[in-house]
C-alpha cells in the first residue's frame, strides 16, 4: 500500500506549500480578529435594552447561521466588487465573508458568556453601591471573559479549518496549494495525507490548549 509513497514531492514543493500555509494563517488571524471585534459589538447590541436593535442583530445572527459558509463566500465574492464598483482581489472579498460569518458565531459565544455570570453577582455588586458600569467592569466582564476564552479558542480552531473553503474561489491557501501540486504531478495521496496530518497536529494541539485553559481559568 505504501510501497510507492513518494516523500520527495513534499520536499520539492515545500516553499509553495509553505506560502499556502502562510495565507491560511494570515486569513485565519485576520478573520478571528475581525470576527471577535464585530462579534463583541453584536453581542453588546443583543444584550442592550433597545429592543429593535437587539431584534435586528438576532435576525442577522440567525440568518447567517442558516446558510452554508460556501454560499456566504460566493455571495461576497460576487457582491463586494459590485458594491465597490471595481474588481477586488478575492482575498479581501473572502476575508469580509469570513468576518461577517464568524462574527455571528462569536457573538453567540460572547452573549452566552456574559449571561452565564450568576445574577446574584450583579445584586452583590450593586448592593455595595457600584454603578452599573462599575459592576460590568470589575465584576461581570472579568468573569465572563474567563468563561468565554476556551470556547472562543475552540471556535477559532473551527475557523482555521473553515478557511480551507477558499478552495471554491481558487484562493491559494494551504489546501488549494496542495491540490494544485497533487493535480499537476498526479500524486494526490501524498499531498492530501500531508495536509490532513498538518491540520490534525495543529488543531489537536490547539484544542488541548483550550481544554487546559478551561480547567485552569473557568469559574
Amino acid at each position, binding site marked *: *500500500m505504501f510501497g510507492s509513497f513518494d516523500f520527495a514531492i513534499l520536499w520539492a514543493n515545500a516553499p509553495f506549500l509553505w506560502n499556502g500555509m502562510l495565507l491560511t494563517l494570515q486569513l485565519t488571524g485576520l478573520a478571528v480578529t475581525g470576527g471577535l471585534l464585530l462579534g463583541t459589538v453584536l453581542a453588546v447590541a443583543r444584550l442592550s435594552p433597545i429592543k429593535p436593535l437587539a431584534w435586528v442583530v438576532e435576525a442577522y445572527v440567525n*440568518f447567517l*447561521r*442558516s*446558510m*452554508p*459558509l*460556501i*454560499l456566504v463566500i*460566493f*455571495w461576497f465574492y*460576487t*457582491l463586494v466588487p*459590485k*458594491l465597490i464598483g471595481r474588481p477586488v482581489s478575492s482575498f479581501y472579498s473572502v476575508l469580509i465573508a469570513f468576518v461577517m460569518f464568524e462574527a455571528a458565531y462569536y457573538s453567540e459565544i460572547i452573549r452566552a458568556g456574559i449571561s452565564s455570570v450568576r445574577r446574584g453577582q450583579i445584586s452583590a455588586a450593586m448592593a455595595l453601591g457600584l454603578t452599573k458600569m462599575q459592576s460590568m467592569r470589575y465584576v461581570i466582564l472579568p468573569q465572563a471573559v474567563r468563561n468565554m476564552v476556551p*470556547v472562543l479558542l*475552540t471556535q477559532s*480552531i473551527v475557523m482555521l*479549518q*473553515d478557511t*480551507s*473553503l477558499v*478552495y*471554491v474561489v481558487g484562493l491559494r491557501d494551504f*489546501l488549494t496549494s496542495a*491540490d494544485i501540486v*497533487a493535480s499537476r504531478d498526479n500524486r*494526490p*495521496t501524498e499531498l*492530501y*495525507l500531508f*495536509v*490532513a496530518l498538518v*491540520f*490534525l497536529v495543529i*488543531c*489537536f494541539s490547539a*484544542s488541548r490548549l483550550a481544554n487546559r485553559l478551561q480547567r485552569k481559568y473557568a469559574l
Partner: protein
Amino acid sequence: MGSYNWNWPILLKEPYFTWIVTGFGKTILIAVLAWAIAFPLGSAIGIARTADNRALRYAGTAYVDIFRNIPLLVQMFLWYFVVPELLPADWGRWVKREMPYPQFTTAVVCLGLYTASRVAEQMRSGIDAIPRGQRNAGLAMGLKPSQVYRYVLIPVAYRTIIPPLTSDFLGVFKNSSLALTIGVLELTSQARQIEEYTFAAFEAFTVATVLYCLVTGLVILIMRILEGRTRIAGTLAVGAQ
C-alpha cells in the same frame, strides 16, 4: 448596484428551474442519507466513550479526535482521491470503475462519518450529565450494564441532547454544500452554475439562500415540537460545544 440588470423570471425558465429543483433535491438527499449513517454510528461511539472498558473509550476518543481536527473539505478529498488508491487492488478497482454515483456516494460517506463524530460528542456529554447515582441505582436493582444503558441512561440522554443535535442536523444540510468540490450538483453548485450561465448572480444566490433558510426553519420547528413532546419534567438541555 444601479447598473445591475434584474432578471428574476429567468429562474423559472428551463433548464435553470430544473437545476434548482434537482440541486435542492440532491442537497436534501445527501443530508438525510448522511444523517442516517451519522446518527446510529455516532450514538454507538458516544456510548463507547462512556463505557467502563478502557479500550472502547480510547477507540471512541481517537475516532472523534481524528474526525474533528481535520477540515471537512480535506476529508472529502481524502475519501474521493486517496482512499480508492489505498484500498486493496480489487476494492480500489470496484470503487473507481464500478461503484454507482461515485461522487454522490463518497460525499454521503464522508459527511456521514464526520457528522458521526459530532453526534458522538453530544451523546457522550448527554450521558455524562446524568448523575452517577442513576447508573448505580440501575445496577443495584440487578440490571446488567447493557440494560442500564438501554432503559435508564440512553432514553434520558437522547431527550436532553435534542437542542444540540438539532444544530448538528442543520450542520449536515449546510455541509452538504462541500460536495460541490468533488462534482456533486447540489443546490449551491447549481446556483453558482446558473450565475455563470446567466449572470443573474443575485437572483440565483437568493433562491439558494431562501431554500436553505426554509429548511433550517422547518427543522427547528420540528425539533421544538419533538422536544416539547418528549420533555422530562424539570430537566434542562445539555450539550457539547
